[in-house]
C-alpha cells in the first residue's frame, strides 16, 4: 500500500466504459428522437431566422448590354444597366427591394424598346456567378448573348440575396407594424393582471373556504381549456357586438379591439392560471397559519404575511404563463381584434394577406423575444417552487365561517356564470336560425358542408389529428423522456436533448407554423413531400406541445426508484423488458395524461396549423376561424361547440379509462 497518496489522477489513459447492448440501444433512441426534434424544430427555426435576416434585391450593376442599330449592327459600345438606370431613373430604388421570387424585366431601361423592332441586344453578366433568365432558361456567366427584341423582353433578372438587419430597419420604420408591439404588450399586461387576480381569488376561495359546490366550480373553471381561444371572441360578438344582446353594456365603446381581446383572453387563460395558483396554495403549510393565530395576527395581516408569500412563486409563474399565452395567441385577436393590430395577427397578415414571408419572419423574431423571456423566467421560478415543498408540511384544512363562505360562494358563482355564459351564448348562437331577426331554433348552422371552411370533413380531420397526435406524440415523448432520464453517462447527448425538449414552450405556434413553411415547403428539402399532408399537421402539433408532455413524463419517471435500471442490469435483463413490464405500467396514469393533453390541444390549436393545412386537411378549429372570417359566425360558433363537446367527451373517456386501468394494473397501489 502506498505511503503517500498523490493528489491528482495518475497520467494514464482513462478507463472507458465498454458500452453494453442496452447502452447502445438507449443512446440510439436518444439520438433518433433528438434528430426528430432537430428536424421538426431546430431546422425550421433556423430557416425562419435566416429568412428574417435575408433580403432580396435586384442588382443592376451585374448586367451589361450592347444594342445594335436597326440593321442589326453593333457599334461595340458597352452599356451598364446600373448606369442606364441612373440616367433614366426607369426603375425607382424602392422597386429594387423584392422577395426571393421577385423577377425584374430589363426593358424599362430602354425607353424606345418595342418587341417588334429589328434591334438586336447583347447581354452578359459582369461576373461568372450572375444569373438571369431568358424565358425560363437559366443563364449565367460573362459570355455575351445575342437576342432579338422579342426575346429580350422575356429576359428577367433574379434578385441577389444578402444578409443583414435591413428587414428589421424596415419593420421598425413602419409605424403600423411597430405599433403592434405596443398593443401586444399592453393587452398582455392588462390581461395578465386581471386574470391572475381573478384566478387567485377563485383558487383562494376554493382552498380556504368551506362553501358548497367546490367540485362544480373546479370543473367549470377548467372548461375553457377545451375550446379554441377564438371561441370567446365569437361569444363576445354575440353579446356586445353591433347587434349584441347586451350592446348597451359597452356604453358606446366597441367590443372589437382591446376590450374584446382582454375579455376573451381572461376566459381562455383562466384555467391555466387557476391550476398553477391552486397548486401553489395547496402546498402552503397549515402550521404557519396556526402560528399566525397563536400570535394573534389579524386575518388581513395573515393573508399578506403568510398566504401571499407562500404563493408568490405560483403567482409569478401564473403571470408569465398567462402573459405568454396572450401575447402569442392568434385566434382571439383575429376574431375580435378589429383594426387593433397584434403581433401574432401581423404574422398571419404578412404571410397570408401580403405573401411577404420575410416580413412575417421578422415579426416572428420580434414575437419570440417576450415569449422567450417569459419562458426563461417561468422556468427559474418553477425550480424555486419545487424547493418550497417540504415533506413535513401539514395540509391546511379550512374551518367553516358562514360570512366568508358566503362571499366566496358569491364570487365563484359570478366567475362561473361568466365562463358558462360565454359557452352558453355560443351554443345559443349555434342553434338560432338568424340572429337577431329569426330566433326560432334550427340545426341549419350545423350544415357545415355548405359553408366555407371544410365542412364536416374538417371536424373528422380534427379528430383524426387529435388521435394521431395523442398516439404518436405520447410514444415519442414518453420514450424520449425515459431515455434521457435513464441513459448512463452520455452527458452531451442528454444535454442537447433536454434543451431541445424545453425549446418548444418558448416558440409561439404562429412562429413554428411559419418556420415549417420555410423549411418543409423548400423544394430542395427531401421532406417536402409531407407538406400539405396530415403528417405535417401531426408533426407540428406534437412539436408545439412537446414541452409540457415531456415535463409530465419526466416528473412521473423521477418518482420511480432510480435503481430499477441497476437492478435489472444486475439481473442481466435488457432495459426494454424493464420498460415494458415495470416502467410503462407504473407510469400509466401519466401516459394517459399526456395523451389527453395532446388530444385536447390538437383539437383546439389554430396558430401552428393555420399555415400548414391544405384543402384536404382542413381542421375544425381552422374552420371556426374561416367561417367567422367569411361572416358565417353562427356556424363558426356551432363548430366551436362541437370541439367543446368532443373534448369534454374525450376527457370523460380518459377518466373512465384511467380508472379502469388503475383498477386493473395498479392493484399494487392498494395496501
Amino acid at each position, binding site marked *: 500500500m502506498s505511503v503517500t497518496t498523490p493528489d*491528482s*489522477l495518475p497520467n494514464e489513459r482513462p478507463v472507458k466504459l465498454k458500452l453494453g447492448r442496452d447502452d447502445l440501444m438507449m443512446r440510439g433512441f436518444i439520438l433518433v428522437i433528438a434528430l426528430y426534434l432537430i428536424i421538426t424544430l431546430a431546422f425550421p427555426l433556423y430557416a425562419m431566422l435566416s429568412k428574417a435576416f435575408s433580403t432580396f434585391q435586384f442588382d443592376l450593376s451585374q448586367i451589361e448590354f450592347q444594342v445594335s442599330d436597326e440593321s442589326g449592327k453593333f457599334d461595340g459600345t458597352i452599356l451598364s444597366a446600373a448606369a442606364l438606370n441612373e440616367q433614366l431613373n426607369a426603375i425607382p430604388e424602392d422597386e429594387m427591394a423584392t422577395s426571393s421570387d421577385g423577377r425584374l424585366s430589363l426593358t424599362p431601361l430602354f425607353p424606345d424598346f418595342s418587341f417588334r423592332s429589328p434591334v438586336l441586344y447583347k447581354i452578359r453578366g459582369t461576373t461568372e456567378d450572375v444569373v438571369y433568365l431568358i424565358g425560363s432558361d437559366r443563364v449565367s456567366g460573362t459570355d455575351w448573348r445575342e437576342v432579338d427584341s422579342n426575346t429580350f423582353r422575356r429576359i428577367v433578372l433574379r434578385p441577389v440575396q444578402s444578409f443583414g438587419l435591413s428587414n428589421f430597419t424596415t419593420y421598425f420604420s413602419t409605424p403600423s407594424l411597430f405599433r403592434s408591439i405596443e398593443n401586444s404588450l399592453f393587452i398582455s399586461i392588462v390581461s395578465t393582471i386581471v386574470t391572475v387576480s381573478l384566478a387567485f381569488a377563485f383558487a383562494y376561495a376554493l382552498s380556504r373556504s368551506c362553501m358548497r359546490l367546490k367540485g362544480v366550480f373546479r370543473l367549470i373553471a377548467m372548461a375553457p381549456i377545451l375550446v379554441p381561444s377564438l371561441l370567446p371572441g365569437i361569444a363576445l360578438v354575440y353579446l356586445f357586438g353591433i347587434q349584441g344582446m347586451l350592446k348597451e353594456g359597452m356604453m358606446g365603446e366597441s367590443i372589437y379591439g382591446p376590450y374584446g381581446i382582454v375579455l376573451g383572453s381572461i376566459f381562455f387563460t383562466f384555467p391555466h392560471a387557476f391550476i398553477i395558483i391552486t397548486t401553489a396554495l395547496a402546498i402552503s403549510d397549515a402550521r404557519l397559519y396556526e402560528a399566525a393565530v397563536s400570535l394573534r395576527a389579524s386575518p388581513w395581516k395573515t393573508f399578506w404575511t403568510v398566504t401571499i408569500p407562500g404563493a408568490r412563486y405560483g403567482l409569478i409563474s401564473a403571470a408569465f404563463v398567462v402573459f405568454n399565452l396572450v401575447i402569442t395567441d392568434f385566434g382571439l385577436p383575429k376574431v375580435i381584434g378589429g383594426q387593433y393590430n397584434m403581433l401574432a395577427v401581423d404574422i398571419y397578415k404578412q404571410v397570408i394577406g401580403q405573401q411577404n414571408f420575410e416580413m412575417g419572419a421578422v415579426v416572428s423574431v420580434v414575437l419570440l423575444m417576450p415569449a422567450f423571456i417569459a419562458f426563461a423566467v417561468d422556468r427559474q421560478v418553477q425550480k424555486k417552487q419545487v424547493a418550497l415543498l417540504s415533506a413535513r408540511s401539514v395540509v391546511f384544512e379550512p374551518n367553516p365561517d358562514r360570512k366568508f363562505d358566503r362571499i366566496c360562494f358569491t364570487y365563484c358563482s359570478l366567475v362561473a356564470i361568466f365562463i358558462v355564459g360565454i359557452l352558453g351564448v355560443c351554443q345559443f348562437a349555434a342553434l338560432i336560425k338568424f340572429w337577431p331577426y329569426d330566433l326560432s331554433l334550427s340545426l341549419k348552422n350545423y350544415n357545415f358542408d355548405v359553408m366555407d371552411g371544410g365542412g364536416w370533413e374538417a371536424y373528422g380531420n380534427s379528430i383524426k389529428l387529435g388521435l394521431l397526435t395523442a398516439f404518436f406524440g405520447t410514444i415519442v415523448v414518453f420514450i424520449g423522456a425515459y431515455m434521457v432520464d435513464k441513459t448512463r453517462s452520455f452527458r452531451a447527448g442528454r444535454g442537447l436533448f433536454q434543451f431541445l425538449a424545453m425549446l418548444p414552450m418558448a416558440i409561439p405556434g404562429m412562429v413554428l407554423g411559419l418556420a415549417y413553411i420555410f423549411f418543409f415547403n423548400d423544394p430542395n428539402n427531401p421532406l417536402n413531400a409531407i407538406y400539405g399532408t396530415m403528417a405535417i399537421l401531426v408533426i407540428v402539433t406534437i412539436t408545439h406541445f412537446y414541452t409540457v408532455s415531456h415535463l409530465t413524463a419526466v416528473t412521473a419517471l423521477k418518482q420511480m426508484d432510480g*435503481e430499477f435500471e*441497476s437492478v435489472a442490469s*444486475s439481473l442481466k435483463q435488457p432495459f426494454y423488458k424493464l420498460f415494458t413490464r415495470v416502467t410503462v405500467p407504473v407510469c400509466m396514469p401519466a401516459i394517459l395524461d399526456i395523451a389527453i393533453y395532446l388530444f385536447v390541444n390538437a383539437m383546439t390549436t389554430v396558430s401552428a396549423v393555420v399555415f400548414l393545412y391544405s384543402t384536404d386537411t382542413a381542421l375544425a378549429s381552422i374552420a371556426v376561424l374561416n367561417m367567422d372570417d367569411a361572416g358565417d359566425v353562427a356556424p363558426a360558433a356551432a363548430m366551436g361547440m362541437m370541439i367543446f363537446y368532443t373534448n369534454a367527451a374525450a376527457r370523460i373517456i380518459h377518466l373512465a379509462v384511467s380508472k379502469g386501468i388503475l383498477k386493473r394494473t395498479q392493484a*399494487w397501489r392498494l395496501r
Partner: protein
Amino acid sequence: MPTEATRELDADEAQPQGEAYLRIDSLWKAFGEFIALRDISLSISEGEFVCFLGPSGCGKTTLLRAIAGLDIQSRGSIEQAGKDISNLPPAERDFGIVFQSYALFPNLTIEKNISFGLENAGLSKAAISARVTELLELVGLPDQGKKYPAQLSGGQQQRIALARAIAMSPGLLLLDEPLSALDAKVRVHLRHEVKELQRKLGITTIMVTHDQEEALSMADRIVVMNHGVIEQIGTPTDIYREPATLFVADFIGEMNKLMAIAGGPGMVTIGQKDFNSGGGDFPPGSEVIAAVRPEDIIPHGPGARSDGAPDDITEPGNAFETTIKEMEFLGSFWRARLVSAALGDAELIADFSINAVRRMQLSVNMDIVIEIPSNRLKVFTRPAGE
C-alpha cells in the same frame, strides 16, 4: 495521514489468505474536479464478508458502484474471479445487488419480482417456480409470494430484495446500506439474518454502511474509508483495538483525544505527566495526539495512591490522581468526566462498570486514582490546525 509504520503493519492483513476473488488495483474516481476515490487497492477472497465503513461522502458507495459497473472508475482496474472486468457494463458482470430503497418493482408480485432475472435464463416454468419457492423459504417468507411489495413491511421487503439479488446465484453480493431505512429493532434482527444467509450460501459479499455497529457485528473484515482513501483494513477487533489512524480511532467507538508531546520511544507527555504508550515512534518534542478509549481507563478507588504504587496498579507510571466532576448512568455502565491537575485543561471521559462503581463507592467530587494501560494508549500525528 497515516504514518509509514502503522501502514506497514496492515499491509499483511490487507492481503487475504489464498487466491483473491476480487482484486481492485489503484482505483481512482473523479467527478469533474472532485476526486471521490484516490488510489484504492484492495483484495477480497472468496466467501468473505467485507464492509466498507465511513462517514457519508467518504467514497464507499462510489467504490461499490464502480465494482458493480454502475459508475465506472476513472483510472485503475478491477478483477473478479481472475477476469478483468474493469470496463464491463453491469449486465456483463456477475453480481447481485440490494439497495437501501429495496428497489422492488411495485407493480409485480413478490414471486414475479424474484423471478424477474430467472425468466429468460433458459429455465422451465416449473424450475423457476421451484427456485422462487426455495428462495422465499430461504429468506423466511414462504407464503408471501402472491402479495405486492407495498403489502409487506420494510424488513420483509428488504428480505425479498435479498432473495431477488441471490436468485441467479451470483458470485458477488453487493449491499448498499441495506438496513439503514429500517427501524432500529428490525435492523438488529436483520443483521443477524443477513449474516446467517451469507454464511450458509458462502457468497462473497460487500456491504456499504455508515453504521459502525453494523460493520463490527457482521463483517469478516472492515475497510474504513475517509475522503476517498482507505484508512485501514482489518478484522473488527483489529479495527477497534488497534486503530491505524486518528480518523479510525475517532470514527469507531468512543475515544478520548488528548493534546500531547512525544517523548522518547514509547513515551508521551500529556499536560505535565509522562506516560508509557503503545507504539508510535515519533521524534521527541513533536506534537501528537494521545488517545484512549473510555472503557480502557481503570479506576483504582480513593484509597490508591499514584506514587505509593499499591499492588493492583500494574503500571504505576501510567497512574495518576483525578477528580470525578460528573457521573452519568447509561444503563449498563457509568460514564464519568474526570479532571486532573496533572493533565492541565484536558478532561477525560471514562466508562466504569456498575460493579466497580459500587465496589469503590465512586461519586461526584471524589478524588480517585486511575490508570491508563500503556498498550491501550495510542499515539497519532497531530493534524494541522489542532
